[in-house]
């Protein structure tokens, strides 16, 4: 039953991948990674055939494209094959950029220069030298102007060059703010103003190694948040009984609490269902099986059973 489901899912996923084959490899990977598993889930749930449930794979792929904000077939090459008229939703992130590759690279480089400039300003321990900022802005301006000249030859869109005043303006504002801060005597706090980097993935100051926090007995979701904010990559091995992670408690961790590990290490949480009445050792055994079957490369099962048996 499940094997049939997963075969059907694999077939379907293969067809979807084929319909998306024109995408750049990284985009393709990002979108279809986990698709087999997802479709197996759909197949296991419904009584009907996958095609009946989801429509033909090409339609599924087209819908995937549009909802994920990926370019449709028609924009890459006029192959004439199934260019469904679906307009993408808000696509501010992954939308196709039809500017030449090198132009994009140049913009990235300029952004990097700006960022470096900002960072170097932050790093200065004595009062900020406003002159540095002005000189930096001038350097960026000259660089941009040269790019502009090259761009004209390469017949770039006009809009591309009109950004120059914007960039210079932003740099000037940063410079002015810093100069103002210098005069005010305090320069440390103001520095954030100029940089538009959203603090989404702000991690704590880089550390090379840290002690594994003790999260045993906490809920899985809590533990995950704490560990992730400490810079660890979290893998959760849960007991098979519960469908939801809610109410799952961390029974043990690998590495065990207090172990000195490199930040960024993948750490494994063994979860058990807090609502079940069974004692920890027996659930730990189940969980061990899960881990050893599912993530054999990750750790040895004996490590786990050792550490869990010490739990009172």
């Amino acid at each position: 039953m499940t094997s049939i489901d997963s075969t059907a899912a694999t077939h379907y996923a293969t067809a979807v991948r084929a319909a998306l084959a024109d995408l750049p490899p990284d985009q393709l990977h990002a979108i279809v990674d986990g698709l087999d598993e997802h479709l197996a889930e759909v197949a296991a749930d419904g009584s009907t055939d996958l095609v009946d449930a989801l429509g033909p794979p090409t339609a599924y792929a087209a819908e995937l494209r549009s909802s994920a904000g990926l370019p449709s077939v028609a924009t890459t090459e006029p192959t004439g094959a199934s260019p469904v008229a679906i307009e993408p939703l808000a696509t501010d992130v992954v939308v196709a950029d039809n500017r030449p590759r090198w132009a994009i690279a140049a913009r990235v480089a300029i952004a990097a220069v700006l960022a470096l400039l900002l960072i170097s300003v932050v790093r200065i321990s004595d009062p900020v030298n406003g002159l540095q900022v002005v000189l930096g802005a001038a350097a960026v301006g000259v660089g941009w102007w040269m790019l502009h000249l090259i761009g004209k030859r390469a017949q770039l869109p006009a809009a591309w060059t009109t950004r120059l005043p914007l960039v210079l303006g932003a740099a000037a504002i940063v410079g002015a703010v810093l100069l103002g801060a210098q005069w005010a005597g305090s320069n440390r706090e103001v520095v954030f103003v100029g940089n538009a980097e959203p603090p989404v993935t702000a991690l704590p100051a880089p550390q090379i190694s840290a002690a594994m926090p003790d999260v045993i007995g906490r809920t899985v979701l809590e533990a995950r948040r704490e560990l992730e904010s400490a810079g660890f990559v979290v893998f959760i091995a849960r007991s098979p009984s519960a469908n939801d992670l809610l109410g799952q408690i961390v029974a043990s961790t690998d590495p065990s609490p207090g172990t000195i590990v490199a930040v960024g290490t993948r750490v494994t949480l063994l979860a058990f269902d807090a609502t079940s009445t069974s004692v920890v050792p027996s659930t730990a055994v189940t969980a061990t099986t899960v881990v050893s079957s599912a993530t054999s490369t990750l750790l040895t099962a004996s490590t786990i059973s050792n550490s869990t048996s010490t739990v009172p």
Partner: protein
Amino acid sequence: VSAVPPGLERTQLLKGVLDAVVLAALADHDGYGYDVVRRLRLGGLPEVADASVYGTLRRLFGQGLLTSYVVASDEGPHRKYYGLTKVGHKALEAQRSDWTAFEATVGRILDGTAFTTTTGDES
């Protein structure tokens, strides 16, 4: 019970609010892709397309509105769970208020009050 031809194109309407409803479905409990599909269908949107949800999750993840982590499952393959980031929660808040305002406006237009109350007695 209701509905004479032709009703509203629900799938078209859905496109505009898919981000918001997907975020809302994950706001309190993290979930994997098919989880989200089920929640939305049980929540009253039977027409929600699997591929749309799947693609939307990937896009929202790419935009930094969702985090993702893998959870081992005994009965099947590993599942990719999604949950809201801080930015995701903020986005949901913004989209909620956008929707409330939009819904109210369309409501006033559809029931006619938008045209009757705004005219006259100003100057």
